[in-house]
């Protein structure tokens, strides 16, 4: 997958050759800082990117079909019934002058459900996400932040999609509400069996909720591993740096370094490995050649020259 943002300063390489797969029932975590391209990927998969963004290459295969090749009519049917998305700011994803009920039924009626059935389903959905059905007739501003986020999740679940993309669904919420919603998502997933592509900058959150994690930096995936393994045995220096950016609430207190410098300008990303200007272990080769992705074990891969010799080794 490649996405470029066309700007007056030249194309921004927001997503550069990213590949990953999601199995049914899995929670894939996508972690990275702002500007690393995580949201762009989510939007590209649903083809809801607007100019100046341009998908310049790549495929997104869903149940054997390439989303990028679908025509408009197909896409209309496909979106929401197969893949739904929960946006970052649920507060703003809802229309402030429409009742929640209308916003919920709108998507179902659009996909050919009768008004009465849609209303019935709306009540079920609110039940599912734990809001009282009488709240259906509220306007968004009458709900708290947590309730609005639940309502948005209900809308995403309306057509029972097999894949849900969640783009920082809890960033704007307080920790307690965040925890509540994450537990709810986990319960719903166990009950309904959908897959999730979970996008966030909060690595500690991802380790808790997802099965496999991909780490993105400057438009590329630098490391992929099962959640536990990534946490216990991070390989890429960037992943290590991220891990060292979160103070813990338990265990021994120690000094955390974070990562020096700031993320690169993607109009002109650094040559070679894009992380090398900030990397504590940078070698001469890192400035010249972009590292290929190396498979360390069956499920763990990393793009870093430090592991050039270890390829295939267990």
């Amino acid at each position, binding site marked *: 997958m490649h996405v470029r943002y066309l700007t007056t300063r030249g194309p921004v390489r927001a997503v550069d050759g990213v590949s990953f797969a999601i199995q049914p029932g899995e929670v894939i975590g996508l972690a990275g800082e702002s500007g690393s391209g995580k949201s762009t990927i989510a939007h590209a998969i649903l083809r809801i990117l607007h100019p100046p963004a341009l998908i310049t290459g790549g495929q997104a295969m869903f149940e054997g079909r390439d989303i990028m090749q679908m025509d408009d009519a197909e896409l209309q049917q496909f979106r929401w019934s197969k893949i739904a998305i929960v946006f970052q700011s649920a507060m703003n994803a809802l229309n402030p002058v429409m009742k929640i009920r209308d916003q919920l039924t709108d998507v179902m009626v659009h996909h050919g459900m009768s008004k009465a059935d849609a209303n019935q389903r709306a009540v079920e959905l609110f039940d599912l996400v734990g809001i009282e059905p009488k709240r259906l007739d509220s306007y968004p501003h009458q709900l708290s932040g947590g309730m609005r986020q639940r309502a948005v999740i209900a809308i995403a679940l309306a057509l029972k999609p097999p894949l849900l993309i969640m783009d920082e669904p809890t960033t704007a919420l307080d920790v307690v509400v965040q925890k509540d919603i994450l537990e709810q998502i986990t319960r719903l997933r166990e009950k309904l069996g959908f897959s999730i592509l979970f996008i966030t900058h909060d690595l500690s959150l991802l380790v808790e909720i997802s099965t496999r994690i991909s780490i993105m930096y400057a438009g590329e995936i630098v490391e992929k591993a099962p959640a536990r393994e990534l946490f216990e045995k991070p390989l890429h220096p960037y992943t290590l740096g991220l891990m060292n950016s979160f103070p*813990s609430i338990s265990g021994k207190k120690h000094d955390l370094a974070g990562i020096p410098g700031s993320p690169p300008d993607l109009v002109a990303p650094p040559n070679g490995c894009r992380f090398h200007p900030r990397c504590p272990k940078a070698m001469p080769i890192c400035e010249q050649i972009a590292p290929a992705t190396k498979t360390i074990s069956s499920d763990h891969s990393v793009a870093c020259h430090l592991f050039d010799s270890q390829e295939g080794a267990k």
Partner: protein
Amino acid sequence: MITATLQTKSILDVRNLTKHFPVGTFISPKQVHAVENVSFSVQRGQVVALVGESGSGKTTTIRMVARLIPATEGEIFFKGVDVLKSEPHEASLGYRRLVQLIFQDPFASLNPVHTIEHHLARPLVIHKKASDSQEIHNRVCELLETVELKPAVAIASRYPHQLSGGQRQRVAIARALAVDPELILADEPISMLDVSIRMGVLNLIHRLKTERGISFVYITHDLASARYIGDQIMVMYAGHMVEGGESEAIMGNPSHPYTQLLLSAVPDPRAGLRTDKNAQARGEVPSLIDPPPGCPFAARCPRVMDICRQVMPEQAVIKPEHWVRCHLFSIAS
């Protein structure tokens, strides 16, 4: 209460600080009880972390301390002087020099049409820290180097939009440092920054504390960073301070049910996905408009008792450096 010997060492002593905002109509006036009877003190060279969810009154508290908004009631002792009495109308220039603020959003706290040098020169001129332009320039570069912005001369001539979020927040810290303050009030200084650069800013605060003996009040909603940097932690809920003390004491033995709830909500991969049944409390923060009597957490508390809905509990001391306001403990002590 804190003993007299400690008070002499403290730089800031806040007692029973209260802020009510009037809302409603002329016919039915109402009060938002934003901050209610908050007391805490900051020792010299210490970082006190104020922790709480949005709407808990953290920012209102430090805005009163910074004297940006008047307090409804209460006393603020700065170096032993009750500043609300000695300077009742507006804080003196001297107070503003010694107590500086850092805001949450480094994109909003710098003026986009002025250079970094201009931002740092202003406090120097206003507080007469430097007079001729050469001296000001040298001082500006020195400040930028203190906050690890290099090369200082180049950074000084830049505009805010040419800097990253982390760099801007460092400029905001440099601006606070320009007037040699003794107390810095930092209002969520890292919450708007990228994760990988947050630690850098926290470590800078820690360095300023140890090297220069500056005291900090650090506001956050994140208990983990409060533990990382705070010597003391104060937990706020719905305008009340519900628990406070040495940070290790609180993290090791969180006593108020709200603190337990907050702690259990922090994602902690080291502990795995914990489902601590004790700390399950549904619901959200109550309305602060004319709240009912009793403990504000009563509506959500898993261990609520009858008395909690009637009387706000008094402070109960668990250990010398750890207190809590909860009826569960007032019975025990």
